[in-house]
């Protein structure tokens, strides 16, 4: 049984041997996920294309100069998402949005408890026109909550999200909870506003 090479191995083959097929596989595996992540962050296809493209071009430059370090403990996906996230923050967020850096206290996290946001959201997602409502609601969220949610939806675990966003783990946990709570309330309002 053949085992597909992992992303880091593909990146190394591209870097060390100039193996274009390896890069094409790597690109095909990750390009949609990266694009969707930036799209959730920005809500803008043009921005998502730009940031995604810049991240990939940076990856290629890195390989060309032999600078990719496969020994790093981060996965290739984390590496790629971090690169795109930082690019987006530098190019767009700092210019147009204020980035709050305060973290929520442990008390805040505890008082959030095991809320019913998940149940409520699942129910709301069953309604019609969900996609556009969710996209609009996502952009009502503060950037810090939106990026945590975008990464979490992408399948990234909270500890990795803390690494990517350079935020303490408990802050990431609370941001996710607040994001889900706010998303639920925004979707509820959106549903009520739609005429029957």
């Amino acid at each position: 049984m053949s085992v597909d090479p992992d992303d880091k191995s593909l990146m190394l083959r591209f870097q060390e041997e100039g193996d274009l097929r390896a890069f094409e596989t790597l690109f095909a595996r990750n390009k949609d996920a990266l694009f969707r992540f930036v799209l959730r962050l920005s809500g803008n296809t043009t921005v998502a294309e730009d940031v995604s493209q810049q991240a990939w071009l940076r990856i290629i430059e890195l390989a060309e100069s032999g600078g990719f370090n496969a020994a790093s403990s981060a996965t290739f996906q984390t590496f790629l998402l971090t690169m795109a996230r930082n690019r987006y923050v530098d190019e767009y967020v700092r210019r147009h949005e204020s980035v709050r850096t305060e973290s929520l206290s442990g008390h805040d996290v505890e008082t959030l408890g095991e809320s019913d946001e998940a149940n409520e959201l699942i129910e709301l997602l069953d309604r019609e026109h969900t996609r556009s409502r969710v996209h609009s609601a996502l952009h009502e969220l503060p950037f810090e909550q939106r990026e945590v949610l975008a990464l979490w939806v992408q399948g990234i675990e909270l500890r990795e999200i803390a690494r990517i966003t350079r935020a303490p783990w408990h802050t990431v946990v609370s941001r996710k909870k607040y994001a889900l709570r706010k998303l639920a309330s925004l979707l509820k309002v959106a549903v009520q506003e739609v005429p029957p």
Partner: protein
Amino acid sequence: MNRDEELRRRLQSLGDEQPSASHDTLVLERAQRAAQSVRTRGATQPAPRRWVWPASLAASLLLGMLAMRLIDVTHYGAVTGAPLVIPADAARGTTGHSIPVEQAKADDWYRYIQELVAAGETREAERHLRRFNELHPDYAYQP
């Protein structure tokens, strides 16, 4: 599947967007140029191979050994040519004469080699040890 996971999956399923063809083309064209550049660099400047470092180390050691051998031959030729003996006080049961190593007991000879090492007579000790290993390949020292 817990509710959290289900929610994640549901939110994930809302996104099926893909980057445009021009996005992909630009990235792949740049990758093609980079791959070509890496291959060209590889052809003109071979990347360091795993065996280069150990091989150069081995070559240095070999040169060092040859140099030492040359010094032995030029400066210690007389010594190297001399028959190997151990002095009477090192060999038990002898009558006051040095004896050829071939006639000495292995333990006595080995102790004498240790004394040579302790006295800093390393070259002589090496000569003895080499011969000792030839004559007593299975010797195990028991203090």
